[in-house]
C-alpha cells in the first residue's frame, strides 16, 4: 500500500517538474534548458522574500512566481528570439542561462542545508494506514490542478489554441494572423511560471539545493523523451512509469539507485520505441 501511495505522489511530483518543460517544447518547439534553474530560482526567491524581507507567505510566493514568469518572458524576448529555429543555439543559450542562474545562486550563498521553505500546513495524516504529510497531499492536488488547467487552457482558450496551431503548422498559423513570436513568448513565460509553481509546491518537502536544479531538468527531459513530446497523455503515463519504477527500486533495491533508474528508463525507451510511449509518426520523423 505504501508503494502505491508514495508511487502516486512521486509520479505527480514528476508531472509537476516536467509540465513546464513539456509545455514549452510541445507548443513552441523551444527546448528550455533553463527549466531547472527557474524551478530553484522561484523557491529561493520565495525563501528570500520570506526570511530577509519578512513578507507574508502568500505575498512572497506570488511575488516569486511573478518574477520568474517575467524572467521567462525576457529570456525569450531578449535571447532566444535571436536564435529561434536553430536547435543547437537554442539549447546552448538556454542551458547557458540555466547554468549561470544556478551557479550564481550557489556562489551567492545557496549552499548546504540551511535553506528550506516551510510547508503550507505542517503535520501529517494517514490514508489507508499509510502515514503521509500534508505537503505531499498538496502536491497531489496541485499537480492534478495544474494538469486540468493545462488541458483546458490548450483545448479551450484562444491563446492556448494559438499555441497549438503554431506547434502544428507554423506557416498556416502565421497566415491566420497568429503572432508566432508573441505566442512563443507566452509559452516560455508560462513554462517558467509552471516551473516556479512546481518549485513552490515541491521544495518544502526537502532542502533547496543547487543540484536539484540539474536533477529537475533531467527528470523533465526523461519524462518528455519517454512520453513523446507534446502529448499530455504520454507525459502523464511516462511520469507514472518512471515514478513507480523509482519507488520500487527504492523499496526493493536501494535508495541511491532511484536516480539511475530514471536515466536507464530514458535510454531503454529510446532504444525500444524511439518515438516515445505515445509518440506519433510526426515525432518519430523528428527524432530518428
Amino acid at each position, binding site marked *: 500500500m505504501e508503494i502505491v501511495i508514495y508511487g502516486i505522489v512521486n509520479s505527480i511530483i514528476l508531472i509537476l517538474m516536467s509540465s513546464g518543460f513539456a509545455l514549452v517544447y510541445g507548443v513552441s518547439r523551444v527546448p528550455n534548458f533553463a527549466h531547472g534553474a527557474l524551478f530553484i530560482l522561484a523557491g529561493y526567491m520565495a525563501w528570500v522574500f520570506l526570511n530577509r524581507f519578512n513578507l507574508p507567505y502568500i505575498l512572497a510566493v506570488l511575488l516569486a512566481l511573478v518574477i520568474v514568469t517575467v524572467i521567462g518572458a525576457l529570456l525569450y524576448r531578449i535571447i532566444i528570439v*535571436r536564435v529561434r529555429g536553430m536547435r543547437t543555439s537554442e539549447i546552448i*543559450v538556454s*542551458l*547557458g542561462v540555466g547554468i*549561470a542562474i544556478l551557479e550564481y545562486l550557489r*556562489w551567492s550563498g545557496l549552499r548546504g542545508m540551511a535553506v528550506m521553505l516551510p510547508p503550507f500546513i505542517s503535520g501529517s495524516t494517514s490514508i489507508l494506514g499509510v502515514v503521509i504529510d500534508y505537503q505531499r497531499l498538496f502536491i497531489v492536488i496541485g499537480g492534478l490542478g495544474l494538469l486540468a488547467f493545462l488541458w483546458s487552457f490548450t483545448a479551450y482558450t484562444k491563446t492556448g489554441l494559438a499555441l497549438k496551431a503554431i506547434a502544428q503548422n507554423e506557416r498556416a498559423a502565421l497566415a491566420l494572423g497568429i503572432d508566432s513570436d508573441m505566442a512563443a513568448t507566452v509559452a516560455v513565460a508560462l513554462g517558467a511560471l509552471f516551473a516556479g509553481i512546481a518549485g513552490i509546491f515541491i521544495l518544502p518537502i526537502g532542502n533547496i539545493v543547487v543540484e536539484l536544479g540539474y536533477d529537475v531538468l533531467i527528470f523533465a527531459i526523461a519524462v518528455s523523451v519517454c512520453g513523446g513530446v507534446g502529448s499530455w497523455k504520454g507525459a502523464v503515463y511516462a511520469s507514472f512509469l518512471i515514478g513507480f519504477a523509482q519507488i520500487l527500486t527504492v523499496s526493493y533495491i536501494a535508495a541511491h539507485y532511484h536516480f539511475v533508474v530514471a536515466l536507464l528508463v530514458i535510454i531503454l525507451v529510446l532504444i525500444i520505441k524511439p518515438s516515445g510511449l505515445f509518440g506519433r509518426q510526426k515525432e518519430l520523423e523528428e527524432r530518428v
Partner: protein
Amino acid sequence: MAELRKERLDRGVKVRTDSIYAVSSMKEIMFLIGPGLALVIILLVLPLLLSPYWERVLALTGVYVLLSIGFGFLAGYVGMVFLGGALFVGVGGYISGLLNTVGVPIYLSIPLATLLGALLCTLAFLPCLPLRGIYFTMVSFVYPLLAARLIAATGVFGGTDGLPGLDVFPNKWVSLYLIVGVILVVVFAISRLVNYKDIGLVLRGVKDNEQAIKASALNLTWYKAQAVFITAVLGCFGGAYLTHLYGWVGMSLFATEFSSLPVAATVVGGISTVFGPMMGAFLLVPISEALREFGTLRIVFYSVIMVCFVAFWTEGLVDYLKRKYEQFEHWVKV
C-alpha cells in the same frame, strides 16, 4: 550625405594563393602556412616560458582544448550536439587509473585507456545514434550523470573517494610536451580529415541531409559511430592524462564542467573551423582558472560569455580573424 555600405574584397595575396601560383614567392607561401606555423611555434615555446602555476593551467587547458575540438567537430561537421564530454573524460580516466593500480605502467595505460575507453563509450552510445537533434543532445547530457551516479551508488572503483596514489608523469616536460604534441597532431589531423578525406565529406552529408546519406547506400549509424569514436578518443585521452597529472582519479572527472566549458569555448572561437574551438578553449580556460578563487562565479562568467556570443556575435573569434586576414573592407557609396 550619401549612404555608405561596407564592401569586402579578398586581398590580392589571398586570390593568388588560391590558385596555381600559390608557391611562386616566399611571401605567398608564408601567407598560406603562416597561421599554422605560428600556432606550432607558440605551442612549442609556451611550456618553456611559464611559471609552475601556469604550467598546471596549460596542462588543464590542453585537456579542454581536446574536448572543445571534439565538440566542435561533432557539432560543426556532423551536426550532433554532444553535451556528454564528461563521460569520455571519466571513462578514460577511470580505465587508466584502474590499469595503473594493477601495475600497468603509465606509457601503456594512457594509450590503452584512450582506445578502450573510446571503444566503450562508442558502444554505450550505439543505441542512441539514430536519434536526431535535441533528443540526441538530451540523452548525451544524461550519460555522464548516469555514470557518476552509478559509481556513487555501487561504490565500485573506490566509490566517492576515488583511487588515490597512481603514478604521475616523471617530470613536467613529459606532461607538458605530451599534451602540446597531442593537440598539434589532433588539430591538423582533424582539419585534414574533414577537409580532404572522403569520410569528411560523408560526415558533412550527415549534418546536411541524412536522407541523402541513406539513399547513397551508406550506413548512417556506422559513420556516426566513427565520428563519436574520434571524439571519444580525444576525450578519453584527456581523462587518462588528467588521471596521471594528478595521480588520482575520482568522480570529479564526470563533472558537468567538462561538458559545458567546451561548448562555451566552441561558441567563442567559432564553430566553422577546427581552430575555433581550440582558440576558444585557450582563451576561456585560463581566464576561468584565474577566477577560481571566486568559486562558482567563474562558471557564471563563462556561461554569460557563451550566451552573449551565441545571441549577439555568432561569428566567433577565429572566423572574424580569418576574415580580417583574408579580406579588406572599405566604405563605398550605395
